[in-house]
């Protein structure tokens, strides 16, 4: 059972942002552990901070409207361009977690200006749009949104999965043993070899050519993967004639499949609920055996180091799929694992599950449903 966070959430009002940018912020906030931030999603929310993207089609008008409505609200200005006359601290794009949260924390502890007036000399509501000075990039597109649209974009929150708790017990397997252990080791060492089990040739691995030839039927391979201690022998493939057929499957596709058959919903030993994991890059998922939610896990773990516990909480995937994904990525050498520090592990354990949004489906959710044929 997780302990609820001790502090109340800090509500952040985002302005000048479309649904894509809001989704990125929402995800970042859900992952942050030290302070619980949340987007101002409903009209009644009282914001403690604001983030204003001035690269939107309305440019600085959004800022002026903010100052008209909230003269003293601490705010960050976000832009991809230098803004030497920015009236608030500037956060340069692309927004990164490493810069976003220190900037927000700075605002919370030391607001830059206690009560900033609107940028214009008169109330923004009665003024014509302020032409941008030369130092500001001019809006590059016709006005695509106004404050009302921005507001409604916030209210059309994306649908997210409910959080899941890490179970008390997760089965594990020895990643150095069996066919899985032998093949992953050969692949890492870039050693070409024929693999025999009980004197029967099972696989030929050619790491340099990124190919692997499977010499047995799929059900036989599955049975051998499930065997805890098969009698395995190797023969090096070194001769000039020892090359794979041009149409042989890729080494990664075979290793990925072999990992799924070996892990069977179990975690590789050595990877714990609080181990920090990061993927070196995305697996080539269009050419690998399907695994539920592999794409969202790939997106998550290429973005930031995070523990399996955190991934489960953020993504709401099945534990067995998560374990299979880690085993498969480990097999093809994509995983960079480090043990979490005690502080990190504690912080992760203390974070309450992110509440699932109950709002109607936003654009991104609807597009995802469309692509899935729903």
């Amino acid at each position, binding site marked *: 059972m997780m302990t609820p966070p001790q502090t109340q959430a800090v509500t952040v009002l985002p302005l000048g942002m479309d649904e*894509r940018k809001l989704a990125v912020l929402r995800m970042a906030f859900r992952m942050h552990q030290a302070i619980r931030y949340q987007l101002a999603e409903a009209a009644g929310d009282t914001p403690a901070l604001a983030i204003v993207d001035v690269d939107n089609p309305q440019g600085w008008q959004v800022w002026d409207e903010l100052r008209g409505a909230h003269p003293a609200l601490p705010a960050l200005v976000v832009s991809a361009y230098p803004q030497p006359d920015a009236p608030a601290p500037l956060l340069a794009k692309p927004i990164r977690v490493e810069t976003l949260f220190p900037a927000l924390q700075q605002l919370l502890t030391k607001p830059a200006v206690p009560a900033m007036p609107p940028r214009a000399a008169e109330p923004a509501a009665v003024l014509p749009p302020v032409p941008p000075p030369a130092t500001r990039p001019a809006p590059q597109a*016709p006005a*695509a949104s106004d404050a009302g649209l921005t507001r409604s974009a916030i209210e059309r929150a994306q649908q997210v999965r409910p959080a899941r708790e890490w179970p008390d017990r997760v089965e594990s397997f020895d990643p150095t043993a069996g066919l899985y252990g032998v093949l992953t080791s050969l692949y890492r060492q870039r050693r070409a070899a024929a693999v025999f089990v009980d004197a029967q040739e099972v696989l030929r691995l050619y790491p340099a050519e990124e190919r692997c030839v499977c010499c047995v039927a799929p059900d036989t391979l599955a049975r051998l993967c499930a065997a805890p201690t098969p009698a395995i022998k190797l023969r090096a493939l070194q001769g000039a004639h020892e090359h794979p057929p041009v149409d042989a499957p890729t080494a990664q596709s075979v290793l990925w499949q072999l990992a799924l058959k070996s892990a069977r919903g179990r975690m590789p030993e050595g990877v714990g609920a609080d181990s920090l994991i990061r993927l070196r*890059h*995305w697996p*080539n998922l269009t050419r690998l055996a399907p695994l539920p939610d592999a794409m969202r896990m790939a997106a998550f773990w290429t973005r930031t180091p995070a523990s399996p516990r955190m991934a489960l909480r953020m*993504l709401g995937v099945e534990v067995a799929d998560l374990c299979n994904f880690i085993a498969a990525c480990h097999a093809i050498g994509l995983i960079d694992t480090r043990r979490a520090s005690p502080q990190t592990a504690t912080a992760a354990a203390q974070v309450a599950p992110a509440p699932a949004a109950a709002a109607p489906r936003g654009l*991104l959710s609807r597009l*995802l449903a469309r692509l899935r044929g729903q």
Partner: protein
Amino acid sequence: MRQQDNKIIFTGPVGAGKTTAIGSISEIAPVKTDARASDMTLARKAETTVALDYGRLSLEGGVRVHLYGTPGQERFDFMWEIVSQGALGLIVLVDNTRPNPSADLQFFLTAFKALLNDAPLVIGVTKTDLSAQPSAEDYANLMEKFGLRPPILEIDPRDGDDVRQLLMALLFSIDPGLEG
């Protein structure tokens, strides 16, 4: 009140499969603006896109997502920035049979640098059945030098499932917890 620009941009060199990719998922017959190639493009295909390809996906609630394919030739690069403003994301298709596909990729990353400040990038590698190199791993190592870890997926642009995977990778790059 104007509708938001719900658009996704497909870009890449001549012959990478942008027109085909849009056609394989668009719900309308794609609007193509091909003309007979008259320059170096002729070596790669007889007709090439000279303006924009356009396709469309309709979503629940009457919202539409527009799919734009840019012309691949550099002399049309003045259009790229205009068309990419406000896009949800960028899909770069790389043709593995070209002489230097890694250089092609770097070129398009630079050309769309402004969009990539805000929007996610997805890379689709085409024609890997004809040329396996560079591998997805090679492209990933190249992207790492730019500080990027985008989805890099081999695709056949004629296969709608492959192209849908590219779009889904783009959506999960924005929010891995997204549910449809």
